[in-house]
């Protein structure tokens, strides 16, 4: 995946423009279900999510979507209870959470 530095630098600007819009009825649109990053337009469901283990040992779906990150609990589909384990250390991430080619900076 190729991303030019220009596009990368423009991401916050473009995103800010889009989110500043108001809806027809008045309230400001704060977020919507389309990726605002410039280098892809896929829906979140199209790409795999990683698994992150929280400090209690419970699993969460975990994905870095470029300009933003997402995480939410993993549930047993039959009982709806969280899925937890003591066989993976807390804080660990399984598989690659990075889903775009955007450069990742952690200060």
């Amino acid at each position, binding site marked *: 995946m190729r991303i030019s530095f220009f596009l990368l630098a423009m*991401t*916050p600007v473009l*995103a*800010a423009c*889009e*989110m500043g819009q108001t*809806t027809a*009825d008045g*309230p*400001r*649109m*704060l*977020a*919507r*279900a*389309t*990726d*605002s990053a410039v280098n892809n337009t896929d*829906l*979140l*469901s199209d790409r*795999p*999510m*990683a*698994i992150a283990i929280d400090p209690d040992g419970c*699993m969460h*779906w975990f994905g870095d*979507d470029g*300009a*933003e*990150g*997402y*995480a*939410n*609990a*993993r*549930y*047993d*589909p*039959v*009982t*709806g*209870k969280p*899925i*937890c*384990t003591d*066989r993976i250390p807390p804080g660990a991430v*399984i*598989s690659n959470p990075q889903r775009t080619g955007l450069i990742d900076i952690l200060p």
Partner: protein
Amino acid sequence: MFRMKFGKVLAAGLTAAFAASSALVAPVAAQQSQDRIVVSGMVEWGIFVDRDGCMHWWADGGLEGYMTTRFNPETGRPLCLQKESCLTESTDTLFHTDSHHLKPGQREVLERFFRSEGAFSYAVYGHTDERASHAYNQALSERRANTVASVARSVGAFVEVEEGFGETRPIATGHNETAWQQNRRVEVVCYHMPR
């Protein structure tokens, strides 16, 4: 509004969120004793379906992202699509009536299943039909779940959860032999890890 039938909740989706926001403002403003509600903005939530079939709401806010669980408002449980369980086996095949001891050959079948599936861990759930007492069915489903979980453990599989539901979670709703037969089952959920 919150007593909506579950089917309606499913169908309503995003549009309901928009309709609700404008409907909320007017009546509340008239009642001074209640908290004043100010709609400062809107979020157009989308649905993310995870590998287990469970749904999450998500939205991209530009330089930030939001995600939360989609719940069934009636049960309070996460809303998950009906996916095939990793294994649903009739207890008529596995066990004799009223027994939690495996029929001849069934141990080998289960061992083969757990060896080939290779999931990170498993949940094993036992279910009975509605005949006999609630307490009896509860105990029988627990013993049967334990039998299957023990076979899993004997071949090195990790069973994180082992639970009996008795007659409380039927998949067929009728009160006849056809329904009962479907409801007598052991369910195995496989917790696979992403690669």
